[in-house]
């Protein structure tokens, strides 16, 4: 029988290894799987490459993972956000590597990774410093740069509801990078607020079919990141 529900956060992240590449969903706090990230901090894997749009805020979630020096390299589009101090400090000290990728190129590279497309051409970044060193090419008299797929060992994703097959639906703009990250990782681990019976999710409305999900973890009351930051909380507490 297929049942992708795991019983604890500890179990969900137990096999993450040093040096792994992990995609983490979220745009700011919307869709950020904080509880999974905290479980990873507890688990201890280090020298990680993290693919995520931002670098976290305050000292919880992704920012806490970075603060604990578990991350060697960030691949992201916007490492500078309100209340984001952990990454900037380490970056200025030269203690963390940054691969800056335009947001749409980041999304497309992840989607390509999940879709078996090793590389594609895009008009984004042509003529800018972010195209430097990249192959460029003309199609129909317009110049494009070649960008390569990104794949990951693991993806951490936050969704709204799942069933035992791993089918997912999301909540509003917390969807963001979740669906494409699910497709691009060898092992996709999803935290959801609701675990429902098979058939409860409308097959016309499932956003991520279960084939892209390996593990589901139930977090009925996920942390409110803004509140944690307002309260100056740090993980581990």
């Amino acid at each position: 029988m297929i049942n992708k529900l795991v019983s604890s956060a500890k179990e969900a992240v137990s096999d993450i290894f040093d040096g792994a590449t992990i995609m983490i969903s979220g745009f700011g706090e919307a869709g950020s799987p904080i509880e999974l990230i905290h479980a990873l901090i507890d688990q201890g894997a280090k020298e990680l490459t993290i693919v995520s749009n931002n670098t976290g805020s305050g000292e919880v979630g992704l920012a806490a993972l970075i603060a604990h020096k578990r991350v060697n390299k960030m691949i992201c589009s916007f490492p500078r956000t309100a209340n984001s101090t952990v990454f900037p400090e380490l970056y200025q000290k030269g203690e963390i590597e940054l691969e800056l990728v335009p947001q749409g190129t980041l999304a497309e590279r992840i989607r390509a990774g999940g879709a078996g497309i090793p590389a594609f051409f895009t008009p984004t970044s042509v003529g800018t410093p972010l195209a430097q060193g990249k192959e460029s090419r003309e199609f129909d008299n317009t110049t494009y740069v070649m960008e390569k797929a990104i794949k990951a060992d693991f993806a951490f994703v936050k969704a709204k509801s799942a069933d035992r097959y791993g089918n997912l639906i999301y909540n509003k703009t917390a969807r963001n990078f979740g669906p494409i990250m699910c497709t691009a990782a060898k092992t996709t681990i999803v935290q959801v607020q609701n675990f429902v019976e098979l058939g409860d999710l409308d097959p016309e409305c499932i956003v991520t079919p279960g084939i892209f999900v390996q593990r589901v973890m139930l977090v009925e009351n996920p942390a409110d990141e803004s509140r944690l930051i307002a309260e100056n909380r740090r993980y581990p507490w």
Partner: protein
Amino acid sequence: MVEKTGVKGWSTDEMAQKVAFDIPDGAYVNLGIGIPELVAGLVPEGREVIYHTENGLLGMGNSPEKGKEDPELINAGKKAVTAIPGASYFHHADSFTMIRGKHIDVCVLGALQVAENGDLANWSTGEAGAIPAVGGAMDLVAGVKTIYVITRHTTKTGESKIVKQCSYPLTGKGVVNRIYTNLAIIDITKEGLFVKEMAPGVSFSYLQTQTEALLNQ
């Protein structure tokens, strides 16, 4: 220098209103963070404009009432927003399909510098040690059909933001269609910069003194 001569030109709201006036009925529009966001509130009545935010919402509405914010319903600036009837949510690859695939009609962005050939610099001053952050700006300028820049005409220290060539790292090459400043509205064409409208009290010769790039009337 603007301060010295006493010519202030349009207010920020007036600039945003000028932009808003140029957005046609039925347009799909992406507004950058900051001053561009003002545009949404100033579109003339009778026009229906649909706002896209690249983090996955088409049909973004006004700010929510205080206390009704949803941390999972935000815009690209990470501020709480609402969704209008007829809105839809989608993932990031689909969102940038709308952008890169030239489905969005108008994007309104701020600028550090705009060059006379339409080059835009708005993401980095290239300073050593600064944290570079690009977000979706490069995708927007590469993909959206019409790019409007809204910006003060000069920097706080009086330097022209409309330049012969950008000295800051580019966001995109030859991408800007029109610039709305406190002093004027300027079209960027293959033949150069053309002044479309000037703020009250601004003369063409004065405007040129405030502008590094060559202007045409």
